[in-house]
């Protein structure tokens, strides 16, 4: 963690197709006052290309944390999660599933696919800021990650 701070920030990959949510996440992070480099891809295929550094993401940095929406175009978030967690190179990166669904079935399935954490998108901005702050606090400060 200290090492990362010294390097001047952490890399977060946000996999999210709704521009409104992308911007909300950016705004919430900026209110959290933490230097985070937020990279965004809008569908499941791009997410995997990014992580595997395939074109056009050949020089993409390896993220310290992935924020993953479940309902994505082209390749569903659940499939993306499964591929990450069965890929020896990628499976150590913590994945936070961040979605609107509060269905038990989705929650169970995500943990079954080895999601590191499952949160639902809050209904208002204040709660969103609180959520992003606590995620940032836990995953980038409290928890030791590879």
């Amino acid at each position: 963690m200290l090492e990362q701070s010294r390097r001047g920030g952490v890399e977060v990959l946000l996999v999210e197709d709704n521009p409104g949510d992308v911007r909300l996440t950016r705004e919430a992070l900026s209110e959290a006052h933490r230097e985070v480099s937020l990279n965004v891809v809008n569908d499941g295929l791009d997410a995997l290309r990014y992580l595997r550094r395939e074109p056009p993401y050949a020089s993409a940095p390896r993220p310290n944390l992935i924020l993953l929406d479940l309902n994505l175009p082209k390749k569903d978030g659940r499939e993306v999660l499964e591929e990450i967690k069965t890929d020896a190179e990628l499976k150590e990166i913590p994945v936070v599933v961040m979605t609107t669904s509060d269905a038990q079935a989705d929650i169970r399935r995500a943990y079954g696919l080895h999601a590191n954490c499952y949160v639902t998108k809050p209904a208002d901005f204040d709660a969103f800021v609180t959520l992003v702050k606590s995620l940032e606090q836990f995953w980038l400060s409290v928890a030791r990650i590879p």
Partner: protein
Amino acid sequence: MLEGNGSGPALAAADTTKVTAANGHAPILLVDDTRDNLILFYSMLKILGQPIVMASSGQEALDACRENDFAVILLDVQMPGMDGFEVAGRVRETERGQTTPIIFVTALHTDQGKVSRGYSLGAVDYLFKPVALETLRAKVAAFIDLFLQKQALRQALVRAREAERQLTEQAAELRRSNEELEQFAYVASHDLKEPLRMVTSYVQLLARRYAGKLDADADEFIGFATEGATRMRTLIDDLLKYSRVGTRGTEFAPIDCGKVLNVISANLEVAIAESGAELRIDPLPTIIADERQFEQLFQNLLANAIKFRGESNPVVHVSARHFDDLTTTPLHNGGHSHPGWMFSVRDNGIGIDPQFASKIFLIFQRLHQRNEYPGTGIGLAVCKKIVERHGGRINVDSKPGEGATFRFTIPDKINGHPVRPNSGKEIQETCSSNHEGAA
């Protein structure tokens, strides 16, 4: 084969052996090889106003019996070829003739042995020639009456079966459309939340970043937008709660209502302390019900009682009484008699004008302005839906300023088994502590 219908014997060869099988018709079959006898019987019986079919041989008689349901057959015993007894035996073998009453017509000198043979073939009566007019008419008329009564009974039975089938179909259709509606409400409100989240979040972001930095109008506009979005969220959440009564119900099991009330007292601790409310809870029974929904039901009623309080501290009295027949309570208007519990939640609050007594159970129905008493008007609609899912009824007894008594019934069982639990396997979500009611 000859046929007539009260308008004179059709002695010319008739091209049909079939008479109209209309309602109220009781066709008569005359069988005799002597044409004069046929004409004589015809003239004696035409006054009865029924279709009459005439056969001059056993074969013609059998053909007619395959085509028609006769009220009665007048059968001459002495016929060349197939005699009356043989005809009778073969009539009994036809599908339509199995139980048709047969009156044998024979000469007086016929011996007893033949008479008993006729009876063994299912003859119901004998007439001896010469036949007396009144006797013949009276006997035939009695069989016509019998035939018409049987016909009416059969039709009534068919109508009753048809009505029953339609009722069953309608009930199934109603159940299906209710389930669809609940499903629709659930999906719709779920999907509505998503765009609403965007509106709410960004209006809030606007307020955070720009409040006080634009002009006064802008601040007011943002204020209204925020308020609207917040209210819409509450409405959608409440609509979800309402639709979940049907779609997310759990299995019925024995629940201790006393314990349920303890849980609710704890849930409402803050409201009770702030209002200085006093809860008087009588001993309550254990009943078969959906525990979560019962909590929700009692909690909505108690929260309302505290919310709509008068000048003095709220006093809420919860009691229950068992009835051997719930139809003796004012809640059940007739219907089948069944035993069950009637619960009462009585308060000393502001009360309700009786003219609104049934309206308050409608979804989103509110009697007060939002700034007087907040809420979406869903609480009592949810209560009603829960009570009805348990086969009971709910009502309110109140006058303005005199408090209100909400009563609801829960039958012990319905149709010998607990009320149909819903198929929803998912654990019912915790209802929020947001308990606005409609009153």
